[in-house]
């Protein structure tokens, strides 16, 4: 009854990448927001799954995206285009690199679909009951890992980081990312997430 979207089938590099429309970017590459968003989504994935960073690479090989994401160092360099990072590099993020990260994020999110649904539901219920988010053990683990990752990797001197100066604010960011990851798991999640990375900032 339910039709399968084309992207759930094994696809080649080109078909996956072709599925993502080209967006307007300058010769400086993708906008700041795009770079921040992609890195934070990966950070959330790593907080959900401790082996997340290995999976980024293995998935890249599996999807034949390793021409862009060849090794750990490349992944690190690309993620450090996030200006909020301590080791941020003033290196542009090309549209192709952004596409590859987007594909990886959505694939990984899809593989965690049940977990994402459950955690989102828990977060919502706790909020409705006005209970602290760490009442739920699995959610608590995710939140505390996310806070640790975020604080160890982001530059506390950037104002974009300073706005998350309390556990509560970081937890809200972590939950927001959980929600976004949930939308990445959807039928059109890949396209939706990709397009949302561009809001006219060129």
């Amino acid at each position, binding site marked *: *009854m*339910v*039709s399968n*979207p*084309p992207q759930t089938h094994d696809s080649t590099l080109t078909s996956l990448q072709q599925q993502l429309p080209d*967006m307007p970017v300058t010769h*400086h590459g993708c*906008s*700041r*927001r795009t770079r921040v968003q992609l890195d934070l989504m990966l950070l959330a994935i790593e907080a959900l799954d401790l082996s997340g960073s290995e999976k980024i690479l293995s998935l890249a090989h599996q999807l034949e995206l390793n021409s862009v994401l060849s090794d750990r160092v490349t992944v690190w360099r690309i993620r450090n285009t996030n*200006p909020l990072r301590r080791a941020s590099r*003033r290196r*542009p993020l090309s549209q192709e690199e952004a596409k590859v990260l987007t594909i990886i994020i959505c694939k990984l999110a899809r593989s965690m679909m049940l977990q994402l*649904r459950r955690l*989102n*539901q828990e*977060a*919502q219920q706790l*909020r*409705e009951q006005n209970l602290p988010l760490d009442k739920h053990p699995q959610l608590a683990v995710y939140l505390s890992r996310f806070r640790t990752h975020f604080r160890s990797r982001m530059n506390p001197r*950037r*104002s*974009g980081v300073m706005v998350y100066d309390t556990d509560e604010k970081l937890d809200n960011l972590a*939950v*927001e990312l959980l*929600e*976004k990851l*949930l*939308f990445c798991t*959807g*039928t*059109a999640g890949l*396209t*939706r*997430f990709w*397009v*949302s*990375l*561009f*809001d*006219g*900032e*060129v």
Partner: protein
Amino acid sequence: MVVRRKYSLPGCTLVVEGLDDPNRDSQSQQSTRSRLCVLVSAECHVLGKPDALAGGLDFLDELVAATSDYTQSFLGMGKVAVQSPHSWITLTPLEGGLHRLNLRSPQNGTTSEPLQIDLTTLQLFDLVDVVDQLLSDRLTLPDRQLNLLPRNRRQAKNEEPVSQRAAPLALGVSSLLVAAIALSPLPVPEVEQPRENVIEETEELSEAIATPTANDSPPEPSPNPQTGESQVELADTVTPIQDPDLLAALRYKLYHEIDEAWTTVPTFEDDLVYRVSVGEDGAILGYRPDSDRAREFDDETPLSNLLYLPVEGGTADVESLAEYKVVFRSNGVLQVSPWDGSSRPSRTPRITDVATIDQLIFEVRDALYDQWEETPVFDRNLDYRLAVTEAGEITQYEPLSDVASVYFGELPIEPLYNPAAGVEIQDDRVTLVPVAEFRVVFTPRGTIQIGPWDGRR
């Protein structure tokens, strides 16, 4: 033949019924599923909600547009109410992470109460996904496909009907709160003095640098030997500093030192003028009021606190110094100009390395985006000239139009403005730090364009 399709996820089910293509040829029958080409009805159930949403093709199109737009806005910019004034299905964010779906009846929308369904994010996701499943199903309404366009803040805002602009107040999203306040027709509250202060000051500074003008000519030096405040006798043995670079650097330093220390709100009504002597290391060696008024209000200025007092007592042993006219204006603006009015300040040295400039473009753009949280309320491009040091500090700025001055407070320049980084003190000598100049354009769409100043001149 009637075709019925059901798209479901745990939280939401969408059922569509329609007719297949009457003209289809027999070859296409190889597919076991027939094509639903003409929609008769669509019905959407959200688990746990008593009301089903149902309607025809118009309803489905509205549902698709509303959920799709809202989702993109949710993914892209956080929770922003995206509404088209004419649509009869809308989604608005609620506090506590819920999303309210409002459904007005298109026929008699004015009289009947709209139907409201509050969705959790999970339910919203399921709703979006059943819609996406339908759109990606090539055998159901092939002419309806997912059509996504990047959104931006301006679009999102413009689609909000005026009556809805107060709604974000309930959201608890601070940036929206700010936007809502900015949009409200209330008169603008009293202008904050520091902000105005900075604009004027910079204009004056940059103006003075470009053209040391006649209207700034100081009053005749009026030596007043009786003044007790003067700590330095301007003896003939002391040589005035001639080096224009040094004079300019000292002026910067003096300006910013006083500006930083001047924190009280003026109670005086006339401008206070002082003649201030500065050593070549930038220390304030002495000053004297230029009028009785200035003497009277001396306590209100930070000059006496900033005065350099030699450790061993007595007077400072100086070889050369520069004299500046320092004006404390009653509106809180500070002006510093050469006392004799004639020494032509040199231009700040320029960064010439292309790679550095290219990198700075990046850095400045990032920093500005980083700071820019307000939704633009201006309707045209705002241009500024910025001077930026190699370390990425903004040391000068200049609005390039009246509108640009007016909306300055909306923009992220001020928090990044660090004039003190424009001078460097090394071996007791003050030098101007080289800068690169950029033209920055803030657009009403919320984007920032930046390029080298001379590259676009």
